[in-house]
């Protein structure tokens, strides 16, 4: 968590939407902007090229209201997905409180997804952050397309999980969003934890708020 401002009684949480180019990161923010009550959100800022590709970032502040005397705000950022914008992508991760990886479900975009995921891990490491220790969620977007890869295939490629060595945490944790699935489970004798995942069609808004709700609740938990 970055900062609790006791002087102005504010808590700001930074959520970053990461992922390959044209995966739907900006579309997620646009949907939130259009659907959240105007009084609960600020101006959306897009630093984009003339062809509406994100050049630096999109930014949308969302106001959760006053809780126990603190004004709580979520600052939603997207990063540019195109590979050659890594310098600006890395800058946006500074001070991040939660990450949403927006994957493009189309089978043809699998390599781009994997490359973007590796890039996310690299950039987080360079900032000294550990993705397995901060709120992290994966959104499989474009589920409506006929060439969308099956979820198990996407999970195997993008969300294989990380090992849990702490014996206290070695217990099954059911995935609250998917029946009969687990966020923490024992596999081949090893305990593994996976990031929660959500299916979405950002263009129609399906799954956009489920993802945002999931990540923001996990971010708020870190404040306690």
């Amino acid at each position, binding site marked *: 968590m*970055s*900062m609790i401002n*006791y002087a102005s009684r504010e808590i700001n949480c930074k959520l970053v939407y990461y992922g390959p180019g044209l995966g739907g990161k900006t579309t997620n923010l646009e949907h939130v902007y259009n659907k959240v009550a105007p009084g*609960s959100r600020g101006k959306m800022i897009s630093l984009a090229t003339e062809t509406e590709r994100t050049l630096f970032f999109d930014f949308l502040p969302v106001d959760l209201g006053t809780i126990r005397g603190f004004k709580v705000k979520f600052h939603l950022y997207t990063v540019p997905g195109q590979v050659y914008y890594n310098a600006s992508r890395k800058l946006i991760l500074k*001070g991040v409180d939660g990450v949403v990886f927006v994957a493009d479900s189309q089978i043809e975009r699998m390599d781009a997804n994997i490359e973007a995921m590796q890039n996310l891990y690299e950039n987080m490491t360079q900032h000294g952050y*550990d993705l397995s220790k901060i709120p992290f969620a994966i959104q499989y977007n474009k589920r409506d397309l006929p060439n969308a890869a099956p979820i198990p295939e996407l999970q195997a490629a993008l969300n294989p999980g990380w090992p849990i060595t702490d014996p206290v945490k070695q217990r099954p944790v059911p995935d609250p969003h998917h029946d009969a699935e687990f966020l923490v489970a024992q596999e081949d004798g090893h305990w593994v934890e996976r990031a929660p995942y959500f299916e979405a069609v950002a263009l129609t808004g399906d799954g956009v*708020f489920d993802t*945002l709700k999931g990540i923001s609740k996990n971010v708020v938990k870190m404040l306690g």
Partner: protein
Amino acid sequence: MSGASSWSFREEDAKRIQVILSGFLGESNARTALIVDRTGQMVATVGEAPAFDPTAFASLTAADFSANDQLARMLGESEFGALFHQGERESMYLADIARRVILVVLFDNRTTLGLVKLRVKAAVVQLTQVFTDMFNRDGTSAPGVESEFLGEAEDEIDKLFGA
């Protein structure tokens, strides 16, 4: 290290900063001084209340400073300690504080860049001390939020983003 390093900003910090920046504004004739966290959050505003959206301003300031930091490195500099943006009537001067926050000074033609630069030096030294103390303190005694906070925050999230 797990996530972003945390720090808290307290009432007494705000007062120390208020005193330093009020003094600086009086000496320099600048309009407003703002402190922005490098992650893009507004920390404090002193002087004339700005007419713009402070949240958006803070995120753009942090991005501006970070982008220039990278440009500095490409030139073989470790950083650009200060930046200046000149407008026809309104200008802004940005200075790094302790590598963690940015001091933004907004001024118009009632003063000059020379005077702002001259007076800002002492303010930067004092602010660096304040923020260094603050960062050294955190992690040891930062008070957390109340225990009921979590449940209420979850309710608000459900309300705002749909249950």
